[in-house]
């Protein structure tokens, strides 16, 4: 048996290729990168917006600016370098994003639920997410499915997806390819190569199409060649549970 968090982490780690340069977030993306490094991508380069480049954290970082990201890293630098030279300079190959709301084109809201001036819930805001969404050569979104988290339209576009305010990424002149996949707790959505809309492309073992479509706030397209992804291997689970997150900091839950 395995949990939804373990499955999402394993699927995310399988998306990373050896030698790639990844802009890492805290939590599951961090675990996914470390799992990839321990398995199929030992030369993955981890960059954190806080300024750590080529980090090899010896403990699970609680925050994105944890001191363990600096100790033993390849470079510790200022944020002007991170955003101007690495991100705007086109050096970042993969970025991870998540958010309170994600829509059919992978637009993400981390700013407000409700109206901006009179919000129902004020969220933290962009941080580096807006520019990661624009500049990373591709992005991966990780989120649990629910109709609340996957509305037809987000209340506020913090980080642009494949189509925002009626224009495609190409029309906006964005350098990166945008969100290519949304890794959920029941299956994987993949962006259509024609119009960028997210489509159900793969289910996790034991899940049905209805398990996914009923938790999405728009009529979700389902691909004809729907796949079933293979579950976490014994080795992937062993690494996650015994080596990477033994105290269940991020893999809590049943």
């Amino acid at each position, binding site marked *: 048996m395995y949990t939804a968090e373990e499955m999402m982490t394993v699927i995310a780690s399988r998306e990373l290729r050896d030698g790639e340069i990844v802009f890492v977030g805290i939590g599951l993306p961090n675990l996914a990168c470390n799992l990839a490094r321990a398995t199929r991508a030992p030369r993955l380069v981890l960059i954190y917006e806080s300024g750590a480049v080529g980090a090899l954290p010896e403990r699970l970082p609680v925050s994105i600016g944890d001191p363990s990201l600096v100790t033993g890293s390849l470079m510790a630098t200022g944020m002007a370098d991170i955003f101007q030279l690495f*991100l705007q300079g086109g050096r970042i190959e993969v970025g991870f994003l998540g958010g309170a709301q994600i829509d059919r084109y992978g637009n993400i809201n981390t700013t407000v639920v409700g109206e901006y001036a009179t919000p129902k819930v004020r969220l933290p805001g*962009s941080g580096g997410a807006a520019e990661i969404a624009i500049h990373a050569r591709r992005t991966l979104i990780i989120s649990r499915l629910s109709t609340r988290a996957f509305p037809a339209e987000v209340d506020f576009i913090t980080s642009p997806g494949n189509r925002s305010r009626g224009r495609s990424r190409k029309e906006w002149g964005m350098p990166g390819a945008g969100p290519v996949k949304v890794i959920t707790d029941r299956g994987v959505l993949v962006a259509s190569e024609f119009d960028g809309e997210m489509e159900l492309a793969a289910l996790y073992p034991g899940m049905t199409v209805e398990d996914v479509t009923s938790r999405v706030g728009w009529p979700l397209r389902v691909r004809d060649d729907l796949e079933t992804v293979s579950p976490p291997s014994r080795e992937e689970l062993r690494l996650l549970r015994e080596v990477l997150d033994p105290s269940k900091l991020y893999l809590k839950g049943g």
Partner: protein
Amino acid sequence: MRDANARYVHDGDTVVIEGFTHLICFAAGHEIIRQKRRELVLCRLTPDLIVDQLIAAGCARKLVFSWAGNPGVGALHAFRRAVETKTPPLEIEEYSHFGMVARFSAGAAHLPFWPLRDYQGTDIPSVNPSIRQVTCPFTGESLAAVPALNPDVTIVHAQRADMEGNTQIWGLLGVQKEAAFASRHVIVVVEELVDTSIVRADPNRTLIPGMIVDAVVVEPWGAHPSYAQGHYDRDNEFYVAWEKISRDSAALANYLDEFVLGVEDRAAYLALQPGLTTRLAATPRVCAGVSYGY
């Protein structure tokens, strides 16, 4: 700390206490609260707990920021109350991290604005009229532009400095260099005051030169619950505990009464928390150093 704040932080000022997770000068923030400064415009990429405390204490009129959360934990509840229920009211002006970095870069370089490839397709410019478009005079490309940010005072925490304020920082560097150069006044708060010969022996490690520094304050553990690489670890337990404290405005007020208003200075703050310095003291990981010979 008391004298430096009294001299350089005034009601209505634009104040920056920078540091990205690392080296956030809580000692300075607490002194601002004790001196009951009002109507401040606070600018920080990540407001962190220090701004949550300043908002709750009634010091802030406006917040300029890019990510207002409790890193690794969740929300800043005093900030949320101020925005959601206007208690107390708080004006906000928000960017992304890159936008804030660019504003400090423009301020430091004495330029009126900074161009960046950003904000296409986002709603952020629709709620912040200071994010505008500029056309490149060479290629015709449309770029985003943000205005220079030139604070009245920037407060930077650091591992060490000499009497002249030549300041050395290692670990995560954040935007402290840009913020300091952009600022009219600079206060440096250090773990350790060192002789100038220590600075001169390793000049590449100097982030802020003494010529732009107005005051040097020696305040060991002045960044707690943030951290100082090589000196002490981040107090992650306190960041987690803040979730509960800040959710309840009465609990938050009690916290400020006991740990900020109820103490005279940082030494008294530390004395209230026995065992803290032992729990968080860093394990040394010393680098070999380099030769500057020629």
